[in-house]
């Protein structure tokens, strides 16, 4: 299963939009926070987890999803949100803590919710699993179409919530796909220092479901593996587990000095940046021309610029609105 020309254009567009969004956020984030780093200051307060390098995972999976399908994302959610179709203006405004944000500034960058496209996040490791499995259960019980996909980092696989929910999804044969983004680092602790298993997809055997590892952050291979798993889920054949080798080009959070990285690792990762790689492949394959990809990049840049402008120019929430929306 290979992505069509249109799907490749869509994937490239969303990868580029995500990267440009992150680059813009990164360029703004330190405003007002220096010379002494103060996380609370500036137009984007709080922690910031960038997903540079992990874009192929989001687009390779979400290329198979529509707005009705469910995604639960991680604390590093921007690439997943963009690929799932979350409103970019409202998402940017939420990250800036503005009244026009997805939740009017109540959630922030780790808690993005867009009910229109069935997208949700949790800032707590592995805790998107239960809600995704529950949404899959809901679809099955209601005999309604749709699959639920939980994105997690490889560190989440060591959490009890992950194991419990995989067991539930498998036992109940739910339309669920678990996507592990293996970027090799849980904050500063490496995967090999966290688990004795090299390939988390092998854990699928413990639940009697298919497991597959995709190497090299390759959007085409991700597309293929996710396509099979999602088709399986849609056909009522139950859940799957996919672990994807990906790369975190940034630190765990902005301000992370990354002293834990081995010498030279970052240079090697940048040399494997998936966006120029995909660009080169699309041109070599004759799927797109330089001019078409330039146009996609320009449109994405304009789209991001407009979203950031919208966010910057939006009003702060009324402080007393903090007291509303506690209950439905």
């Amino acid at each position, binding site marked *: 299963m290979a992505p069509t020309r249109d799907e490749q254009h869509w994937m490239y567009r969303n990868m580029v939009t995500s990267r440009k969004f992150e680059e813009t956020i990164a360029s703004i984030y330190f405003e007002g926070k220096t010379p002494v780093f103060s996380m609370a200051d500036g137009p984007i307060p709080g922690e910031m987890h960038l997903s540079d390098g992990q874009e192929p995972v989001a687009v390779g999976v979400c290329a198979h999803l529509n707005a009705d399908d469910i995604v639960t994302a991680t604390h590093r959610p921007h690439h997943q949100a963009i690929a799932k179709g979350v409103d970019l203006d409202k998402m940017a405004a939420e990250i800036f803590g503005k009244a026009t944000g997805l939740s009017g500034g109540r959630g922030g960058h780790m808690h993005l919710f867009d009910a229109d496209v069935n997208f949700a996040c949790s800032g707590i490791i592995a805790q998107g699993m239960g809600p995704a499995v529950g*949404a899959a259960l809901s679809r099955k019980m209601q005999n309604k179409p749709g699959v639920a996909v939980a994105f997690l980092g490889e560190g989440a696989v060591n959490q009890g919530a992950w194991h419990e929910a995989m067991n*539930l999804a498998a036992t109940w044969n739910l339309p669920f796909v678990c996507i592990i983004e293996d970027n090799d680092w849980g904050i500063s602790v490496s995967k090999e220092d966290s688990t004795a298993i090299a390939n988390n997809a092998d854990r699928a055997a413990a639940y009697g479901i298919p497991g597959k590892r995709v190497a090299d952050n390759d959007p085409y291979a991700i597309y293929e593996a996710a396509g099979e798993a999602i088709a399986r889920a849609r056909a009522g054949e139950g859940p799957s587990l996919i672990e994807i080798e990906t790369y975190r080009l940034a630190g765990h959070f902005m301000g992370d000095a990354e002293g834990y990285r081995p010498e030279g690792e970052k240079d090697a990762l940048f040399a494997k940046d998936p966006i120029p790689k995909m660009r080169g492949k699309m041109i070599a394959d004759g799927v797109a021309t330089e001019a078409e990809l330039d146009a996609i990049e320009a449109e994405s840049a304009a789209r991001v610029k407009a979203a950031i402008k919208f966010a910057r120019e939006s009003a702060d929430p009324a402080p007393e609105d903090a007291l509303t929306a506690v209950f439905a």
Partner: protein
Amino acid sequence: MTKSNERKLTIARAMAEAVQQEMQVDPSVFVMGEDIGALGGVYGNTRGLLEEFGPERIRDTPISETAFIGAAVGAAQDGMRPVAELMFVDFFGVCFDAIYNLMAKNTYFSGGNVKVPMVLMTSTGGGYSDGGQHSQCLYGTFAHLPGMKVVCPSNAYDAKGLMTAAMRDDSPVVYMYHKSLQGMGWLATEPGATVHVPEESYTLEIGKAKVARQGEDVTIVSLGLGVHNAIKAAEQLEGQGVSAEVIDLVSLVPLDRDTIRASVAKTGRLIVVDEDYMSYGVSGEIIASVTEHDISVLKAAPKRVAYPDVPIPFARVMEQFCLPNVDKIVTAFDSMKAA
């Protein structure tokens, strides 16, 4: 009144009937939890439901509270109305993220765009030597954290109406039922909890306290099993010529402060009876709700009859020593008079 309209039910039966009736009219309601199927729930509150609705809607789970309570959140957000059972409230520690970070916060995080209409029902209380991991109440723990409504019935009539209201609420409701009120054969049950329950479906307003007994001299505020102790204490006090009013909180969140304040404004005295730990809990909240509003209504310092700040001991004499009881309530009033 027809004969059938005089029937009395236990809380367990009343809860099961509420769920049954709501499941008959609302296909989005389903029940999920440990041993809620063929066993009918350890505390009987799902008895008979499997036979009528089958294992798809009366869904036994593995012992995986984190997963199935998290799944209830996801199903609720996707249009279902799950009722999930946490068998003992003491087990919250293995699944609290699903409760207070997901169930309770997702509506807020979405600015009100995502609803989490689920019921988390859980048993509370001890008194039968089940030890410190199976006997707690933890009312204050749940009521303290925003985003979840918290209710606790003291009798079967309220139990049915509260359960129906909870299933229909668009917000998550934590439904805490006391084991000693359930009417289970293997647990001593307070007879006062088994009362007349109408056959038809009805709701009780969440967030509304009840005056369980009228009085003039002292207000005794409690919930769950404590209401029955408070009523018995009020009867003893009546023998001494003291007229005690008993307030049944029914709901902890929202808390009906108006009803409490109105009663204390009338009586001038306040005793709070709480089987949960004394410190940082419901008893302090009730007293603060009165005193911060208008301390001048008080003729005496308020008193608390609550569980001391120790884990629940196993030995019967030790546990009974710690539990609130009628004598402690009467003594609290006596010390209030003496002060």
